[in-house]
């Protein structure tokens, strides 16, 4: 478990003070994948670096498994760091050393016997799927392979926490997907707590359990990935969600809604959980003597749960429409007027 309590980081730049972190309170539970998202300069990398004290908080404390790390001596810090693996956007491998040596490095530093290093590195490389590349050098590998080496290296000391600093930001979408799959596998098989920072909402949607949105050194919104994606509160969060959920109304449709004025009844229906599988639209249509015209829709999966999003035009008697809306609200779906959303 990682707890941030009032974590503040202030840099001195000339006479100016820069507040990278401004009182962060967050709790990352053991075994979960926690994502922190924000635009560049939001304070993400400062935040993740306070966990292994690559950055020391100016104020506040970071507790790992209940222990405040800012009070540790430098020797104790080094011991603690061996329990916290870290992977980086630019991999940060030793270019002068083989893949084997890179993965072995944390073990060499700990004076592990040679035969044990051999054995362990072999199984780590097998785990990340690069057993046949042991004698190559990093510059002979692709970005995705380098990140796998970074991951193998980070796991060498059997850490309980893995920090991912924009680990997929330098990779193409397909490679990103395979690295995310590997991180999920690590999380499930070893029950390693993962804290990751990213500016890609797709990464959060793909593997995170919880998400916190960082802006100007503050957490502006946090919660389960499902909640934040289906009901984002802050404008910044909404922007991030829209970047991957594609739930913006097409411009032509917007025009149509606006042209129609108040005469048309256009609603957005969000399906959660069980309601996704039900033929809600046709049921409502039959039951209330209405014509329903689906203008736009998509269904995606969030944390293994299906989530649907429809823009529907209701054509018929006003009172019938109101009754229909009430019926929809009774089920696992939410309804709101599309015009409100579009604004």
């Amino acid at each position, binding site marked *: 478990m990682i707890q941030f309590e009032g974590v503040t980081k202030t840099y001195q730049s000339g006479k100016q003070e820069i507040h990278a972190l401004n009182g962060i309170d967050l709790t990352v539970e053991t075994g979960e994948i926690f994502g922190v998202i924000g635009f560049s300069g939001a304070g993400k990398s400062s935040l993740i670096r306070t966990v292994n004290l690559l950055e020391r908080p100016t104020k506040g404390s970071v507790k790992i498994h209940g222990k405040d790390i800012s009070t540790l001596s430098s020797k104790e810090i080094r011991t603690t760091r061996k329990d916290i693996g870290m992977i980086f956007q630019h991999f*940060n491998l030793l270019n002068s050393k083989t893949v084997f040596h890179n993965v072995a490095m944390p073990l060499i530093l700990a004076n592990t016997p040679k035969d044990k290093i051999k054995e362990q590195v072999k199984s780590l490389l097998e785990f990340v799927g690069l057993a046949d590349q042991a004698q190559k050098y990093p510059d002979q590998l692709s970005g995705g392979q380098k990140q796998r080496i970074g991951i193998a290296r980070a796991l060498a000391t059997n850490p309980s926490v893995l920090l991912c600093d924009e680990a997929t930001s330098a990779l193409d979408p397909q490679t990103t997907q395979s690295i995310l799959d590997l991180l999920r596998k690590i999380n499930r098989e070893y029950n390693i707590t993962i804290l990751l920072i990213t500016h890609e909402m797709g990464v959060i949607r793909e593997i995170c359990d919880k998400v916190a949105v960082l802006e100007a050194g503050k957490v502006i919104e946090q919660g389960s990935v499902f909640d934040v994606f289906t009901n984002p509160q802050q404008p910044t969060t909404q922007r991030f969600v829209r970047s991957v959920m594609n739930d913006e109304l097409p411009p032509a449709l917007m025009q149509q809604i606006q042209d129609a004025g108040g005469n048309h009844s256009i609603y957005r229906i969000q399906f959660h959980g069980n309601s996704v599988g039900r033929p809600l639209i046709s049921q409502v249509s039959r039951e209330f003597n209405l014509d329903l015209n689906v203008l736009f829709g998509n269904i995606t999966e969030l944390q293994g749960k299906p989530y649907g999003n429809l823009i529907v035009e209701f054509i018929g008697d006003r009172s019938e429409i109101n009754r229909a809306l009430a019926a929809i609200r009774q089920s696992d779906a939410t309804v709101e007027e599309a015009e409100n959303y579009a604004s």
Partner: protein
Amino acid sequence: MLVDNEQILEALWETVYMTGVSFAFSLLIGFPLGILLVVTRRGHLLQNEAVFKVLNVIINIFRSVPFIILMVAIIPLTRLIVGTSIGTSAAIVPLVFYAGPYIARLIENSLLEVDKGVIEAAQAMGASPGQIIFRFLIPEALSSLVLALTIAIVGLIGASAMAGAIGGGGLGDLAITYGYQRFDTLVMVLTVAILVVLVQGVQSLGNILSKRVRRS
């Protein structure tokens, strides 16, 4: 020609001797200083502004004195160390004072080229400052360090030619006393040619070695 082959060979040996011995001592002084210059700077492993500033100034002072003046200026010190201020061995003292700070700067430069991310990764895996220097910084910079030291050796060969001014001997001495002062053009051309071959050889060797240690 006013000199025989034996004299040329002896001069060549003196040059190699002066360069070799002063390089060894300069490295001994310059290497640790170069490392200190890197790790004590702000935001680095062992940040220590006082140490950094003092070192920085001292090295700059030595680097700004022209070698020919340095040679004369430290004659008392040379006498103290070697027992005499004249001769090949006496020339080594000013050469070390010249090349030590130079090497410190070259080492500093090479080590600063190492990707900060690598140092960060080392810290994140719990490496101590000593482990970071010897297991990360130096291996990653090794190829560039070899090239930097090659530059230092070539510089020393050049500087050692001036050592003739205090009776240091060597090819430079030969070129000046016979080639220049006694108008023996052949000696001049010959010594310069030998120096060119020497420098070419050192540089080629440095290039090959640098390439070889790029991956270790």
